[in-house]
């Protein structure tokens, strides 16, 4: 149920983005509206919920007192819409038609200025035939009626909103990741419309990512769950960028190079915007023809970058060569005189790791330890220094992972340990699953504990892939 709520929010944001680029009756816009209604209707008709409601405050989505990390990253367009309306959230009830949802997207795309107040916003909705979509009042501080927000409201909401370990540490990074997601989404959309992509924006966001990465490694994007492949493609690039920046720092590269690598990560899969959706988003294995088309995306991406004036060798190299193996296999097929750079090798490692451990539609995330098994066993695939850097930077359990300890307590990894399989953790639940209050969560360095160890990576529905499926995941990354 929680995942469905997150999916619905992400779909609303995606719909606004698509509507900005296209028109009401465009297939992509209609498709998202159909998916939204198709997901919402059974949920509400089942009687478990009679409305779909969520709050917006402080650039975050909040539902039942919980800060929704994933949708908050992916939903900036919807957050901005709510801010302009001056509302504190939305309530959707049945009956709700696809046209209603398309109208909602249109309003979201068209509303570019802040409205006078919530009354004006409600009037706008009513005049647009959306009076039955309720606009919630903004959050206010307790006892501060009608103030419409402000510092008091912010702190009141922050105190009231439940923040688990992940969310509390991630909250300061939210705006950076929102901007990253938005940048990739915008560029992908621009590509579909054969418009110019914004390389300067990508570069600026890459630099921001590096700056916040300086505060410590935290693989926040591993918690994203995507309702559709479009969202996954975007989130994938953001996570590759984040992982790339971490590895570049681990390798001791300069800040300037880290920025370049982060930018390269954001742009490495740009070429997928030119691959037909039927192939790109096909849930099953690709046949030979489809595979041939898919394998053109690195070349297409490099061409797009060049046509848009990209001159950075690192960005170009990563876009072109991120599917080239160290042993020369992979794609695109290159002449003998061609050499792959270490930047491309680094992005290659991050790309494959992300693809294996991400939660995509039709595929649940893989335990990182299993992902490492696959990667180290594939001799000749990866540049040894880059693969070593990945393990050294993240350990077997990337910071931010939830893990089960050998004494049955649950913990969150806060930092890599001296040994890859023995990270530093913060215990969040006791052996019976009782959540510990934030101030009392003990920190343990498993590298210093001989008795305690991680026995399992905790994730909803961690998946076991077969060999053929694994290969497909890697090749289609």
């Amino acid at each position: 149920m929680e995942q469905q709520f997150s999916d619905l929010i992400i779909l609303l944001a995606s719909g606004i983005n698509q509507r900005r680029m296209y028109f009401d009756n465009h297939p992509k816009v209609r498709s998202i509206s159909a998916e939204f209604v198709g997901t919402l209707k059974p949920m509400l008709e089942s009687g478990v919920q009679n409305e779909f409601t969520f709050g917006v405050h402080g650039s975050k989505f909040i539902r039942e007192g919980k800060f929704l990390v994933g949708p908050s990253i992916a939903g900036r367009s919807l957050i901005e819409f709510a801010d302009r309306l001056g509302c504190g959230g939305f309530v959707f009830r049945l009956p709700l038609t696809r046209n209603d949802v398309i109208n909602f997207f249109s309003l979201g795309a068209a509303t570019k200025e802040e409205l006078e107040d919530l009354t004006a916003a409600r009037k706008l909705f009513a005049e647009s035939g959306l009076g039955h979509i309720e606009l919630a009042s903004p959050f206010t501080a307790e006892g501060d009626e009608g103030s419409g927000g402000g510092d008091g409201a912010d702190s009141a909401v922050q105190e009231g909103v439940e923040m688990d370990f992940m969310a509390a540490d991630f909250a300061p990074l939210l705006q950076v990741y929102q901007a990253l997601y938005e940048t990739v989404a915008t560029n992908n959309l621009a590509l579909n419309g054969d418009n110019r992509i914004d390389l300067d924006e990508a570069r600026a966001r890459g630099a921001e990512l590096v700056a916040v990465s300086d505060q410590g490694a935290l693989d926040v994007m591993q918690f994203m769950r995507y309702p559709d492949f479009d969202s996954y493609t975007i989130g994938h690039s953001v996570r590759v960028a984040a992982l790339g920046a971490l590895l570049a720092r681990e390798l001791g590269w300069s800040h300037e190079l880290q920025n370049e690598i982060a930018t390269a990560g954001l742009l490495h899969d740009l070429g997928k915007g030119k691959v037909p959706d039927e192939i790109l988003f096909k849930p099953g294995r690709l046949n030979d023809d489809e595979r041939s088309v898919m394998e053109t995306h690195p070349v297409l991406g490099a061409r797009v970058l060049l046509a848009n004036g990209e001159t950075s060798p690192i960005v170009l190299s990563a876009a072109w060569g991120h599917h080239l193996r160290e042993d020369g296999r992979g794609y695109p097929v290159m002449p003998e005189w061609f050499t792959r750079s270490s930047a491309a090798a680094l992005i290659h490692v991050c790309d494959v790791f992300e693809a294996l451990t991400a939660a995509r539609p039709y595929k649940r995330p893989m335990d990182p330890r299993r992902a490492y098994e696959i990667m180290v066993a594939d001799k000749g695939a990866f540049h040894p220094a880059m693969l070593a850097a990945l393990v050294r930077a993240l350990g077997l359990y990337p910071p931010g992972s939830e893990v089960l300890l050998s004494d049955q307590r649950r913990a969150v990894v806060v930092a890599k340990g001296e040994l890859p399989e023995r990270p530093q953790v913060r215990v969040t639940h006791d052996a019976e699953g009782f959540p510990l209050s934030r101030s009392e969560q003990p920190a343990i360095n498993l590298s210093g504990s001989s008795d305690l160890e991680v026995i399992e990576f905790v994730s909803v529905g961690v998946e076991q892939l077969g060999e053929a499926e694994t290969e497909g995941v890697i090749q289609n990354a």
Partner: protein
Amino acid sequence: MSESLSKTDQEEAHAGPELGSDLTDAPQESPAVDSPPLAAEHEQLLIALDRMLTTGSYYPPGHAQYVAVADQCADAVAGALHGLACVEIEVTTEGLAVGGGVAEKSNRCAQRLYELLEPLNQALLEIHADVTTEDLHEALSVLKHNHKQLAGTRDYQEIEIEGMPQTVSVTGRSLYVRTKTGNGPEQTSSPLNEYFDPNTIPDAALVPTPEGQMMEREFLAVIQGLMKAGNAAHLDALRDAGDTPVAEILGTWVPDFAIKSIKDMLNALEETNSDASMLHHLVGHAQTALQLTGDPLLVELIFEKLRKENKASKKSQPLLEKRPKPVRKATTFTLSRAELRSLIDDVYTEADTLEPLEDIVAPARADAIGICLQVLNVAPSDELSAGITTSLEVMLSSEHLNEVDLQVAVDALIDVFKYDKLETAEAMVSMVCPPLRHAHRAKLGPLWLNVWNGLASAQQYERAWPFVVNELLMGMWWEDPREKIALYNALSSVHVADRTDLLIRLENLPALKEKILAKELFHVPAPLLYGVHQLLMMSSLTDLHGPLMHQRLEYQKAHPLATILMNGFAEYNHAHRQAYQAILIQGVSEKIAPEMQDVATRHLKGTLNRLPAERREEPWVTEAIRWLGKLGTAKTRPVLKKIVSDKKFLLFPEWPAACRNAASDALAGVNTSDERDRHDFHR
């Protein structure tokens, strides 16, 4: 109500806050109750219990850490007992009360236990003297389990704690007997109090209440007001009402706003008070109160209907939704931890044996140059071409450009010439050479030499030839003159005579299009670039090229015969191109080339024939006459004779004596046949 009560008492019994009265008339707050601090041993008890809840739960029973904490807890219990049968910990609004002292709920030692017991609506925790550490562990586990279950509650139900060990017990608030001063019914004036179970919620008039209890108080006040009226007719109406709302049935007996108040308060209580048993108990009291009217069924019906109406229009979400537990599917690993660790160590070792990655940008630059050149293979659009041009310009102009970068360009160019991709070659050259010329001009020549050396057949050379010549014309600079000569020799190895196809390709390249002719072309002996000059003489650049070439040939004095011919020309004349070509062919060779023989004979003959008188004294003329004699055939005899015998005014010789003598000597040696004897003529 009992008949024994006096009328005054009855009146008093019915008295109470009027419906809708200002409840602030009733005392709202109790006199301040001092909360003395905990005694040291009781504080130690709470601390020990807190540790049992935290540290003690991290480790399984039997673990050394667990045993240590459990022992401490047992000691603390013993210390708190003071010889009593059990120690009691009471849950109050302030916090936890033990032995007369109170630890506030925000106190670190009390907070966790308070937050465990209070939501479970437990008012008392008793620990008996014969408790064991296992009993304590079990008791706390049971309480935590129930606390967790509370999170999954979707409806309101009385909480009953089951499974507690015999030595540790809890008492729910509904059963708890308050014995504290300031609580209890005797201090209130309500005549209903005797019908209330004294072990119930605190009288709000006596102690400060949180919001939930305030509402409960208001609720009771409303109910008390309802008690004032009601009869059997209303009961019948309610029984037969079906789904008709209560408000429609009760009419003026129970005013609309009263019904609404009850419904609102029921709703608000459900939303704000998670204590299901409290609400149940409250409603039970209200029913009891209404039963004083003698209509228990009426009361039952009212509340039943009100509850139904409330639930039908319920808007609030369940307060505590059961959070889904993460579903853990066991992952099957193909490697044990040790095996994986070993493989990872191998990766580390392999990584450590590699050369350190010192320069990341340089390999990326070489990579990107290759990418740009590779993309050119697929007919790029104008926009893409512009992008590639810009990228290559940046990369090839880089001050850090190195041999690896250049080799990429060399290899790419070799490719296009090898596989006859001339259109791509044109684009590639136009994007590679200009930035090199601008920023690294000394590298351009060696680049082309390397390209040439990478080719392997006459066809491939011919494909590359126009491009190299074009670069020559645009300007090449050399640090190593040997490399220059090597390339020029290589160019000369291509036979270009009558190769209009090569000329056409050259014409389509920038140098001829833009009429660019680098002076460096003439800084080497012209014959070294014979083929280049030959084609240029036929090209659209001839007007620019010719005079410069004439100067060069005149200057270089490669062969005496060439010198004589050039002297004879005086200045560049395109009509003499055959002679220029012959001179170029002759070069510095001592053996007279056949072409030179023919051309020189013809030109010397013509030149001497037309030589104006004022030039006949020039030093070269005599030598020219001698050469004509050497080279000439019978056809040259008339010219020689003319030199010998021409007279002005029939008296004075036209030619100087030296010329006449040379002509006489030449006549003696000139070949008598028309065909030139193809001997090897030497200087």
